[in-house]
C-alpha cells in the first residue's frame, strides 16, 4: 500500500514541477494524471499497489472537497440573492449537456 502511495505521490510531484516550470496553464495534478496514464499504458496493466491506493482515494473523493465547499458560508448572502437564477442556469445547463452528448453518440454510433 505504501508503495502505491509513494508512486502516486511521485507522479503528483512531477506534475506540480512541470506545471510550475513548463506548463503553467495546466494544474499540476492533471499533468500527474496524464503521466500516470502514460505509465499505466506502458506497463499494460494497473499494478496492484497503485490500484489499492487509487481506488480507496477515489471511493471517498467526495470527502476531499468538503473543506473547500464549506467556504460557501462566506458566499451565502450573494448566493441567496441569486438563488433562483443560479438554480435555473444549473438545471438547464446540465440537461442540455446530457442531451447534446447523448444525441451525438446515438447519431454517430448508427453510422458505424
Amino acid at each position: 500500500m505504501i508503495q502505491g502511495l509513494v508512486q502516486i505521490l511521485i507522479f503528483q510531484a512531477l506534475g506540480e514541477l512541470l506545471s510550475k516550470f513548463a506548463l503553467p496553464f495546466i494544474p499540476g495534478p492533471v499533468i500527474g494524471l496524464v503521466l500516470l496514464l502514460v505509465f499505466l499504458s506502458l506497463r499494460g496493466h494497473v499494478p496492484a499497489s497503485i490500484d489499492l491506493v487509487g481506488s480507496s482515494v477515489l471511493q471517498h473523493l467526495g470527502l476531499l472537497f468538503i473543506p473547500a465547499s464549506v467556504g460557501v458560508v462566506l458566499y451565502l448572502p450573494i448566493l441567496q440573492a441569486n438563488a433562483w437564477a443560479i438554480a435555473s442556469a444549473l438545471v438547464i445547463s446540465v440537461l442540455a449537456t446530457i442531451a447534446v452528448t447523448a444525441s451525438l453518440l446515438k447519431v454517430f454510433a448508427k453510422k458505424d
Partner: protein
Amino acid sequence: MQANLPPISEIWVYLSGSPLLALVLTLSAYLLGLTLYERSDRNPLANPVLIAVILVSLSINLLDMSYVKYFEGAQFVHFLLGTATVSLAIPIYKGFASLKGRMGILMLALLAGGVTSIFTAVGMARLLGVDESLVHGLVAKSVTAPIAMGIAERVQASPTLTAIFAVSTGILGAVLGRYVLDALRITAWWQRGFALGVAAHGIGTSRAFSVNPEAGAYASLGMGLHGILGAVLIPYAVAW
C-alpha cells in the same frame, strides 16, 4: 471526587488551536452523510457531500469558529485532492479497455458536451441577471470537482463557488439525467453512461454504476476525459 480537571474553557482553547477539531468535524460529518446516503438507498438527493457541508457549516457557525480557522485544520484533507486527481488515471486506463474503437465519437461528443455546458450555464446566468462574481464559478462546473477547482484558480474564479456549483450539477444530473435520456430514446448503456459522466462527473458516475456496470465504466471515462480536456481548454475559452 473532584479531580484536578482544568476548566472547560482551557480544554476548549487547546482543542480549537489544533487541527484535530476541524479534522474530526469534517470526517464525522462525512461519515454521517454516508450513513444517511446508504439508508436512503443511495438516493442522489441525499448526497453525502451536501449533507456534510451543511453539517460542518452549521457546526462552525455554532462554535463561533471562522472559516479560515476551520480550513487551517481541514487542509490535510484538502491536500489529498491532488492525489485523487492523479488517481483518476486508473479508471480512465481501465475504461480504455472497453472502448471497441469508439474513441473518435466519444471525443467528439465530449467536446460538444463540454462546450454546451459552459455556454448554456454562463449564457443563462447572464440572461437571468446573475451577479457577475458568481458567473465565473459556473465555467468549470461540469468538470469533476478536484480538477474544476484547479481550473478555477487559473481563471481567477473562486474554487469554493466552483466546488459548490460542481456538486450541485452532479446531484442535478444524477437525479434528472434519466428523464432527458428516456425522452430522447437513448437506450444503449454506454451512451447513457458517457453522457452522465461528461455532464455530472463523479456523482453522475456513481449513479451510473448503481444502474449498470457498462454505463458506470463509460461514465468514469467521460468524467476523466472531461477533466483532462477541461483543464487544457477551459483557460483558453475564458481568455477568448
